[in-house]
């Protein structure tokens, strides 16, 4: 049986960004989402490596579409989507997070507020 792969922190962020972007999750948008919402400026090399890893784990799938804007130099675009397994993994991670943060709201809330 395939061993369940734990989600790394950056991987969780990437999956969440894709979920946020819904059907607009291209490489460039994901990077911008991470930068805008999570203040994580990752190199493109790291981002694509994470995407490849998530795909290998079966948490992502993608499809290639023809270029829609001239900004891309005529290159095609890859749209990512989270698979059921990915969604399950992020739920598990979120549950673990919630369970571990329960009772620490004051401490965490003060810092984040």
């Amino acid at each position, binding site marked *: 049986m395939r061993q369940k792969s734990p989600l790394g922190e950056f991987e969780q962020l990437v999956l969440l960004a894709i979920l946020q972007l819904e059907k607009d999750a291209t490489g460039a948008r994901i990077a911008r989402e991470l930068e805008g919402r999570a203040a994580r400026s990752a190199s493109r090399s790291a981002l694509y490596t994470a995407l490849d890893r998530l*795909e290998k784990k079966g948490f992502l799938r993608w499809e290639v579409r023809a270029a829609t804007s001239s900004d891309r130099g005529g*290159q095609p675009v890859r749209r990512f989507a989270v698979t059921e397994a990915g969604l399950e993994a992020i739920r598990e991670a979120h549950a673990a997070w919630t369970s571990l943060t329960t009772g620490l709201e004051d401490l965490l809330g003060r810092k984040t507020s």
Partner: protein
Amino acid sequence: MRRAQRPPRAHRALLRKLLSGSVVGRTILGDVEEEHQARFLRDGQRAADAWYRSQARRLCLRDLRLRLTTSSAWRRRRRSGTPESRGRTTLWLTPFASLWQDARYALRSVAVYRGRSLAAVAMLALAIGIATAMFTVADALLLRPVPFPDADRLARLTMRDDRGNALISVPPEVFHAWRASTAFEAVEGARSTFAWVGFDGGEVNRVVARVTPGLFAMLGGVQPLRGRLFGPADGQPDRDDQVLVSENLWRSLYAADPSLVGRTVRIDDRPATVVGILPAEFRFPDASTVIWRLDAFDRPDDRPPIVYARFARDVPRDDALALATAQAHDAGAYADTRANATPLQFDYGDYRDGVIQMLAGAVLLLFVVLCANVAGLLLGNLTSRVHEFSTRTALGAPRGRLMRQAFLEAAMLGAGGSAAGAALAWLIVSAGHTILPPATLGGSLNTLDIDLRALSAAAIAGVAATLGAGLIPAISGTRTGVSRLLQTSGHSSPMRGARAATRALLVCQVALSCTLVFGATLLVRSFINLAGQDRGLDVSNVLAANVGFPAESFTTPEARLSAASSLRDAARALPGMTTLSWSHGRPPRGNTYGGLWTSDAAGAEPVDMIVHVFGVEPDFFDLYRVPILRGRPFRASDHVGDSWWDLPDTAVLVSEHFASTLWPGQDPLGRRFTFGESPELRVIGLVRDLYLPSLDDATDVPEIYVPFGEPGVFAVLSMRCGGPCPDPNQVREQLKAAHPGGRLLNEVAPPESGYLAHLSNPRAAATLGSSFALIALVAAAAGLFCLFSQSVARRRRELGVRTALGATPAHLRRLVWSEGLIVTLLGIAIAAIASVALTRLLSSMLLDVAPTDPLSWAIVVITLVAAIAAAAWYPTKTAVRASPVALLRED
């Protein structure tokens, strides 16, 4: 309108180079371009470019890492057979998608080294083309049986005496007895002669075969292109004016006119109806036969047929022949003769077979030389190719991929060479009829078609050599560690073993081409000796016409003599004619008489030999410049109106050969002799021997000359001109006009043509041998040129230092030459050993040329030195002219 800003050019190009090979890579390219544009609008160009540069660097590194890890993982998965369920979705497509890419890469590589690639393709084409053509010829002439079903049951029937001599022809009675016999499944007759074939534009002299109607059925598998074959009803005495025409004649003479069947053509001025057209592939009884004419061979004055038979399946051959012998004796054949069957393949003699075998051997050598050259060419820039492959290995290119690219590159060259080789073979074989003389080629009953087995074998061998040489750089490049390569300078090769291999190849090439040049020199010198050999007579400025006096037009000897006299007058009226003479027999061949010759010496044993008998007029000896050594020529009083065979005491002149055989060491003048049952003949003079230009002394037979008497049904009119002779066609027209009711049997031609058949095989051997040697020599010179060029390229730095230190051009030249000289000397040494074996093989084809002949060796050495000088000229020039400063600066 907002204008898209391009990222930094160099980094963009680098990224494109690395990533544009796959769809995913292209989406990444698009992503970073999109981001660069966004950053350009937000932060300005400088910041956007800086970002792009940093991302490009990281993505490149990532891509290299990925190539190494993913491909090895992919290989691992392939080995374990685990299905590729996840990971890069395009991965399973890689081998196929990249095949096209590899093919394009290989094509680019071929284009980059286009000079060398072109030379390799040309050499390969030459090797494959010549080898295929030669083996096609060898197959058609030597290996393939005659092109008829069950060819082993077909045979030519002759009568042989107890001494094994074949009688000249089978008597008609015996032929008819055999036809009626049950010993064979079928017995048919055919006889080829020359005849004048009329068409709209005039008439031409062609080979016409008279055949019995059942011949085609006996051979089997003959289908006419148009019309029909002869049927059983044909061949009746009143229906013998029907002919079949060959496709070749139909196309060349009658412009492929479909209405020819049923039309009348004129053959020897007699009308004949065309009943069918036979395909060009049908060649029988001679390869050059173009018309088949019905003949029952039952007229007594006809020349008897050559007899062909098909053995019955259920009668053993010995029994059939024994029965045939008994029937022949019943039909009146000599008691000491018996029936004999020889296979239907034309008997070409040992020389022709030897020539074909020798040429096939030469072609094999040439093939090896050319393939070695192809390999040498491909190994030529081995060092740089090995560098290329090891660098690419270090950058992460998988070994299999590199091997595949090298394989594709070599395969492209191989395929190109094979295709061009097949085209060349087709060209050579098509032109074969003009390249090869009829005596070499024409006798074959098989047509020349490209031998596909030979073509495949040659192509496979050629492509294997190309692949072998093409894969070596890839094999050693992907094995050699890049660190080791990087440690060495670009100008000095780490591939000592490979260089040694290239040199060994060259030594072989030089040795083989030297052997070929030596063999060709011997053959050419032999041919020159043969052509210049004393023939015992002078045929320059002589024309001869074969004239027929058909019995139906000329019924008495007087009528024939009168016609001969008026023909002589007509010939004499032609400008420039000085001497004319009628004869039976046309030098170099008289009429052949084989049997027992008995001298008048006491107790002399009869001598069994073949003698050429010429019936000549007194002027014959003067006309042909045959010296009378002793005694006197004929006088008018010696001439008799009838055959020497029937008259006693006929005066004859004999040749030295004849005299020394019958009266060894004695004076032949005044002596007498008999032939078989003939009356006695009296020797009145001794003349010089006539010689054929032949390697075999046995072809020279003794001659005797008897008085001409009268023309009979056929005689030869020889004409000597004071200077160059008039146009033979003009002479023919003149003679034809003066000879109503008679026929000119052949074209009026110089007797020289009688010698051509004897010279054509040696000439073909010498010509083809020299051509092969020349090609081998050029190939070896090209190989040496590569060696010199590489040597100069490799030692540029050294040469620069030497020039800077004051080395003279002569010194540099010596340096460059020394390497080639060692190769050449080694090659010549090996060739000298090989030549000993070669001359043993060639011994039967050589005339007055010794294997140690200094002139031949001088020719070989001079030719080779010239080839080396030509090969070394340009590289040496480059070496001497190069500026030392520029050379030293290069590193």
